[in-house]
């Protein structure tokens, strides 16, 4: 029973709160409905005339005016109730055919009839206003929330200026416009610093800039420049304003306070999102700056440390040739010249690595990718190693049927040269260059990988150093090894940078019976399938 009542209540509430389109058609329909009700009440009263007493007839008119108040506007409902009372008075209250009232017999009845009708019309009108406001508020809250989500998820909130302007236009009843700062507030107004959503004239532009600079709202109801036909609202955030909105008002005289508060809330929502985006940009810039600073410092450290030794050897040997040339034996002279050539090769390698690291570290680096065969890349590394590998310690072993690699051959050669160079430097005994294909593990997504490993039987890398060894400016502590310990410097760091630039990874794995395996893992890309003959 309660549920039924509740349902009825809700139904009535919905009828009352139904949005009223105040067009002339609506008014005519409402008037016609009221007229039908009045006619029904009048007919009923006429039929019942002389069968019931006057008070019962009066109730029919009261019912008609109460029912009509459900859809009539407040003034119309009041007027209809009055018309019902007067027509009842005219037709049924003696003396009939006149509006004169027998004060002692009927005045209270007529007064009560009018009072009850008016009271109910007033209550219905208030209920309707509240219901409309509640529905409006709920709709607005939903809209604000949706926009808030869009703004929160948007990396560039300025791109969302259009939906915000559309929502503002709805509030003002006329097209709205937005002026959004790209970045910092410029010292002078200029069009380059802002993005404008919607069409604005010169006066409006000046108004928007003023609003932005002062971070204050202008227009009707704001207490400032109230003569304006529009609201100028700043896009505020804690750190200041990030733009301004122009909300043109269809009827400036009747603009409601609640609309302005909503418009400002919307503007502040956009302002906060813009603030967040600005902060994100700034922190990203600061991070990049710190990173590039870090790389630069490391490179400088590497240059100042690792370059001095070969330079010292070269200067020593060359100046000796220059100053003592005639007194040296031909064998001594040849030895010094060889030393110079060797050190210059070493310097060249370091320079290539340092430059490559700086290049790969820069944002937006592009690789010269092509289809390359692992065999050729390994072959090139062997050819290069042969110059430094007098004892033929380096051997290659390739799995048959390897796929082509999508890579930059120059960079991969550099990577392998560095790894082989390191292995030659920090180990004695055989060095293996092994290439194999690794299928993705069962249950693991992702492509197959090609693994190019450089394996040595040296002392290996201490567990504590295994991560650090890829950082810029780290060297294995091979002080005991004769002729070793000359700077790798950026060597392994550039290897890792090259691996990562190819979407791969460089890993260090200690080997079971001593030594290290440096492994380049590269994802396999499906090569073009075409007949080549």
């Amino acid at each position: 029973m309660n549920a039924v009542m509740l349902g009825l209540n809700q139904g009535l509430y919905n009828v009352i709160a139904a949005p009223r389109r105040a067009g002339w058609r609506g008014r005519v329909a409402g008037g016609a409905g009221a007229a039908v009700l009045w006619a029904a009440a009048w007919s009923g009263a006429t039929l019942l005339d002389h069968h019931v007493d006057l008070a019962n007839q009066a109730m029919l008119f009261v019912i008609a005016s109460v029912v009509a108040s459900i859809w009539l506007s407040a003034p119309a409902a009041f007027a209809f109730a009055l018309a019902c009372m007067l027509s009842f008075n005219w037709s049924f209250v003696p003396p009939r055919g006149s509006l004169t009232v027998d004060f002692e017999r009927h005045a209270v009845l007529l007064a009560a009839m009018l009072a009850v009708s008016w009271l109910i019309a007033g209550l219905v009108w208030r209920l309707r206003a509240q219901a409309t406001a509640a529905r409006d508020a709920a709709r607005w809250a939903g809209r604000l929330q949706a926009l808030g989500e869009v703004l929160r998820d948007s990396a560039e909130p300025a791109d969302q200026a259009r939906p915000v302007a559309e929502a503002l236009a709805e509030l003002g009843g006329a097209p709205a416009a937005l002026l959004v700062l790209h970045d910092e507030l410029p010292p002078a107004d200029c069009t380059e610093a802002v993005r404008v959503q919607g069409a604005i004239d010169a006066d409006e532009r000046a108004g928007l800039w003023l609003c932005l600079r002062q971070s204050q709202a202008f227009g009707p109801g704001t207490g400032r420049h109230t003569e304006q036909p529009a609201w100028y609202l700043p896009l505020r955030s804690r750190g200041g304003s990030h733009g301004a909105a122009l909300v043109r008002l269809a009827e400036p005289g009747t603009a409601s306070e609640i609309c302005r508060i909503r418009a400002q809330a919307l503007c502040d929502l956009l302002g906060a999102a813009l603030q967040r985006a600005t902060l994100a940009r700034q922190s990203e810039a600061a991070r990049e700056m710190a990173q590039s600073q870090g790389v630069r410092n490391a490179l400088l450290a590497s240059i100042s440390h690792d370059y001095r030794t070969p330079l010292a050897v070269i200067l020593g040997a060359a100046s000796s040739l220059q100053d003592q040339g005639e007194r040296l034996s031909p064998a001594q002279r040849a030895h010094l010249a060889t030393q110079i050539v060797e050190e210059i090769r070493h310097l060249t390698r370091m320079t290539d690595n340092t430059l490559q690291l700086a290049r790969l570290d820069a944002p937006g680096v592009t690789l010269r990718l092509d289809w390359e065969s692992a065999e050729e890349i390994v072959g090139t590394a062997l050819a290069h190693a042969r110059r430094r590998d007098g004892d033929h310690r380096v051997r290659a072993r390739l799995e048959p049927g390897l796929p082509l690699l999508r890579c930059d051959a120059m960079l991969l050669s550099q990577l392998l040269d560095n790894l082989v160079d390191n292995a030659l430097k920090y180990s004695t005994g055989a060095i293996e260059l092994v290439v194999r294909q690794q299928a993705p593990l069962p249950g693991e997504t992702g492509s197959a990988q090609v693994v190019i490993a450089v394996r040595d039987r040296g002392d290996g890398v201490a567990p504590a150093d295994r991560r650090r060894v890829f950082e810029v400016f780290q060297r294995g502590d091979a002080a005991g090894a004769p002729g070793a310990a000359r700077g790798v410097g950026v060597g392994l760091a550039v290897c890792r940078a090259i691996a990562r630039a190819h979407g791969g990874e460089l890993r260090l794995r200690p080997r079971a019976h001593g030594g290290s395996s440096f492994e380049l893992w590269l994802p396999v890309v499906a090569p073009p399938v075409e007949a080549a003959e």
Partner: protein
Amino acid sequence: MMRVLLVEDDRELRTTLRDALALEGYDVSTAASLSEGLALWTHARSGPDLVVLDLGLPDGDGETLLAALRRRESTPVLVISARQADGQKIRLLDAGADDYLVKPFSVGELLARMRVALRHRGTALKPALTRYESDDLTVDLSAHRVDLRGEPVHLTPTEFKLLARLVRSAGQVVTHRQLLADVWGDEFTEHTHYLRLYMGQLRAKLEADSADPRRLLTEPGVGYRLAESA
């Protein structure tokens, strides 16, 4: 006496190379800029036998000079460039430069490359090299015959065309683009994966260890070089 035109803007390197080449018996004229090189080239009564051309010149592109040279004769041009990964270097090789060296290089390397370039001089006019012999590999292009350790080797038509192209430029680098255009055709110049496959097959047939080739050498990112015949 062989005449060499050396175009290099760095004074120290120019002097060093000039002296080193003169010591080897070359008649060297030097230019420090593109315009000077062009002037020397145009006004000399007879052109040089070989040009050593630096890429980073103060007044413009080495390409301009190469184009001017190629309009008249097939004088060998050796490009010296400062950077390993230099797109211009490959463009010049494609445009007809004979070989390249990356700075820093030793005088020995430069002289070896010059000798190869001079040996190829005028091959466009004279009958091209048709015979290659190195250790136990013999390639006779006119007879369409390849022998390894005295045994004939069977090559597919494409493998043979590829090897023939390298033999004609033995000792010199041939770019990917040149190989693809000459063996497969102009529309295949981007199909480097063909080259990888066929070079792999050639190496399997002609090299003792195809992972450690001694004849069919790779120039990473540039092209291939058939080791100079002994």
